């Protein structure tokens, strides 16, 4: 056993975090309605719920970002500090957000002691003590990151360790992890779970927020389900099944419609049957690419007209980059991409769009939509040339074109003019997908199209991609590391370190074999 490096919680036996009857309202939206939550030291509580259920609001209140309208938050048995007293909050509870909150230009030690650097007399920063303490905390908790490295040079996984270390160094014994595996590849996620278990064994309380129920089952001891701002289920994990959780998340009354939206789709008759409407073949010919962290070495791949091909691999395997090259969003170092007889200009997204390639980018916040513009405008952005008269296009025409797609994808908005930044994450993703479909593509390039989307929306998006490709004869190139996405594919290509490692041609694909292949094991 390690001795905790800094004083532990002073009130023995009290929950690390306790929320009682917490209410929060934003305008007319009631984000939280009387939420109770209790987390004991040494436990790991999984907090799950669909997008918009109130998870983010609860996290913000528990980390002291906003006050609750009603109800009480207690930390370590004491009433929560006042809102402005950030140091007091951080000493009791620390949040590790999805997006890294380290300053890339500073060293690990500086980030660990950000804003509370040890000083010598006269207020000068005591660099030696800062480094020593950082090393000590790292050693105490069994982490291994060099205190003198600039954080900009660290991997995503290491940055997360820096954030956790920062929390522990401040004396916090309660961590809030918000989707911590979203940016991690599988190996790193496993190591994170190992770290979480170790922290828990030493009495740290962990609130674990995730979309992935498997993860919750893997590392949590308890689970709490939020739905529409209410805590609908709280139980030790041993007492619930995955089905119970899904039922609680979706709500009993909705379950019958939502759970079965996408039964693993029946394998489709290929080429032969639908040859009449199948589009041109996509040929990727000897494509290479090199940049820090991503490498593609001479990859060749053919997607026949109407065929749906999945490309998967670990982060850095090149799967995403290959898809971006096909969509014209990245330029290859060498090699060629052809659609039918047409040779696509490298890195020319507008040209690829004209050729009929629809594109669902990986990071919707960065590439997927323009937040200030309305849903209809974002959806019709790929087809302004077609819907304008002499270059002019009014809101009505845009909405007329966007409405069928919005309906088809069950987009929830207060009207298609509503700025996309006001929509929930799942609905933003629907806008991004609709934008790609609006141009009636002959080939859809989709990268992780269901990332960060709740279970029901996920199934809906996949089943719609499945249906649209079937109906229109469009081909699909789907790059994803989420194996669930790949069920709609006819064939899956696995990339390992920038080269095609193996191919699975017989759906349904074997999960275990796929995972093994991405790790470079068991070539079939």
């Amino acid at each position, binding site marked *: 056993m390690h001795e905790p490096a800094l004083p532990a919680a002073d009130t023995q036996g009290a929950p690390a975090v306790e929320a009682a009857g917490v209410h929060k309202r934003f305008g007319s939206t009631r984000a939280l309605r009387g939420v109770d939550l209790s987390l004991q030291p040494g436990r790991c509580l999984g907090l799950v719920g669909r997008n918009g259920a109130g998870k983010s609001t609860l996290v913000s209140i528990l980390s002291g970002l906003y006050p609750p309208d009603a109800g009480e938050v207690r930390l370590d048995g004491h009433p929560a500090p006042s809102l402005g007293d950030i140091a007091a909050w951080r000493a009791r509870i620390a949040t590790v957000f999805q997006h890294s909150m380290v300053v890339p230009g500073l060293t690990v030690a500086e980030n660990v002691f950000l804003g509370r650097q040890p000083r010598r007399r006269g207020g000068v920063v005591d660099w030696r003590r800062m480094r020593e303490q950082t090393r000590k905390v790292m050693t105490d908790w069994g982490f291994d990151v060099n205190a003198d490295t600039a954080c900009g040079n660290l991997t995503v996984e290491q940055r997360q360790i820096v954030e956790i270390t920062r929390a522990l160094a401040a004396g916090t014994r309660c961590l809030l992890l918000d989707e911590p595996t979203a940016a991690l590849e599988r190996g790193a996620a496993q190591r994170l779970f190992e770290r979480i278990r170790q922290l828990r064994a030493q009495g740290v309380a962990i609130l674990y927020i995730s979309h992935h129920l498997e993860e919750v089952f893997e590392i949590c001891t308890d689970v709490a389900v939020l739905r529409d701002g209410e805590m609908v289920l709280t139980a030790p994990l041993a007492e619930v099944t995955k089905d119970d959780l899904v039922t609680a998340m979706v709500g009993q009354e909705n379950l019958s419609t939502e759970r079965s939206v996408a039964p693993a789709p029946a394998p489709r008759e290929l080429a032969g049957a639908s040859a009449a409407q199948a589009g041109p073949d996509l040929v990727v010919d000897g494509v290479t690419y090199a940049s820090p962290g991503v490498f593609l070495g001479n990859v060749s791949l053919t997607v026949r007209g109407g065929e749906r091909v999945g490309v998967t691999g670990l982060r850095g395997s090149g799967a995403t980059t290959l898809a971006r090259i096909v969509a014209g969003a990245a330029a290859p170092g060498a090699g060629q991409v052809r659609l039918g007889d047409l040779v696509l200009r490298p890195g020319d*997204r507008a040209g690829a769009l004209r050729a009929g390639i629809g594109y669902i980018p990986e990071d919707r916040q960065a590439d997927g*939509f*323009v937040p*200030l513009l309305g849903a209809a405008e974002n959806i019709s952005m790929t087809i302004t040339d077609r819907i304008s008269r002499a270059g002019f296009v009014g809101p009505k025409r845009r909405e007329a074109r966007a409405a069928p797609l919005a309906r088809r994808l069950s987009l929830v908005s207060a009207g298609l003019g509503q700025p996309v930044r006001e929509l929930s994450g799942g609905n933003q993703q629907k806008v991004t997908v609709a934008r790609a479909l609006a141009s009636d593509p002959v080939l859809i390039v989709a990268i992780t199209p269901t990332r960060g989307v709740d279970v029901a929306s996920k199934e809906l998006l996949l089943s719609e991609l499945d249906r649209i490709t079937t109906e229109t004869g469009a081909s699909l190139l789907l790059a994803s590391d989420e194996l669930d996405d790949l069920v709609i594919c006819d064939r899956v290509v696995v990339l390992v370190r920038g080269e095609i490692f193996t191919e699975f041609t017989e759906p349904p694909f074997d999960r275990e074999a796929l995972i093994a292949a991405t790790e470079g094991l068991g070539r079939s």
Partner: protein
Amino acid sequence: MSDTKNNLAALAADVESALARRRSRSAAAISWIREVALLPVLFILIIVGAILNPHFLTVANLTGIGQQVSSLGVVVVGESLILLIGGMDLSLESTYGLAPMIAAWLIVPAAAFGNGWMLNPYLGIVILLAVGAAVGTVNGLLIVKGRLNGFIVTLGMTILLAGIQDGIVKGQAPFNLPAPFAYLGSANIGAIPVSLIVAAIIFALTGLFLRYHRLGRAIYAVGGNREAARAAGIKVNKVRMGVYIAGSILAAIGGLMEAGRVSSVAPQQGYGEGIIFAVFAAAVIGGVSLQGGRGNMVGAASGVILLGVVQNILFLENAPNYWIDAINGAVILFALILARVIGGEASAE
């Protein structure tokens, strides 16, 4: 079978949408108030002006304000376009001086400080537009293709251009501008100055273009999220390039108006007067975001008029000369704060 499910899902989405619509109706009302936030302020200012000075609300004075602000206004249109794509251009003020200076220098006789070529004044106007286009092209190439920082590029450019403006005439001000060249800035149709009419038309056409033309919408998309616009197949760099050129041409037209109004081109016109501060102030007070992607021509126009009215009131009230700048600065700050309070984040971002 899967059809029924999808229909059910669509139905559920419809119900949720209806709820969301109800919620956002009040939000829509607020955002509408934000769009016209400056109008009440303008209204109050006009009442104040009328109370302070009986001369304020006369046709002569109001058209005078109109003529004075129209040249500034045209530059504000140019700067707003550039701000909308998420750029900024400090050199518009020098283009505003240099373009009419080169044109005037080439068309007036040597006795009026021309270079002696005495070109046709219509050709002069073409040259003026060409100078604007050339400056915009160079800026655009350096910023868009050369990936240099727009602030620094246009800062350097504004000093360079102002130096040329001064250098070619050795500090003299060409005068006696021929009628066709001065027409835009000096003529009236009835009681209304041509420059005001032209400026109003430029505001209106630009506003309609931004709202309804696909390229206008592309400007918002590029400014709102450049990468998303690129992924949607918008030719981002062409749009940016075009906007830098259009902005500079508009600045040149603004300069032509000013030259016609005073019937000469001073070496200080533009840079020497530091008009870029008023240009930015008008745009930002009018709700054009410095981050790009947000703002419109109604706002920009109200920003321009507001500044013009304030200056006019100060002038009519014989505000002490030495204090004019201080008062002006205070008014700009006050208007910004007010716009922030009424308009929320819309104007100050």
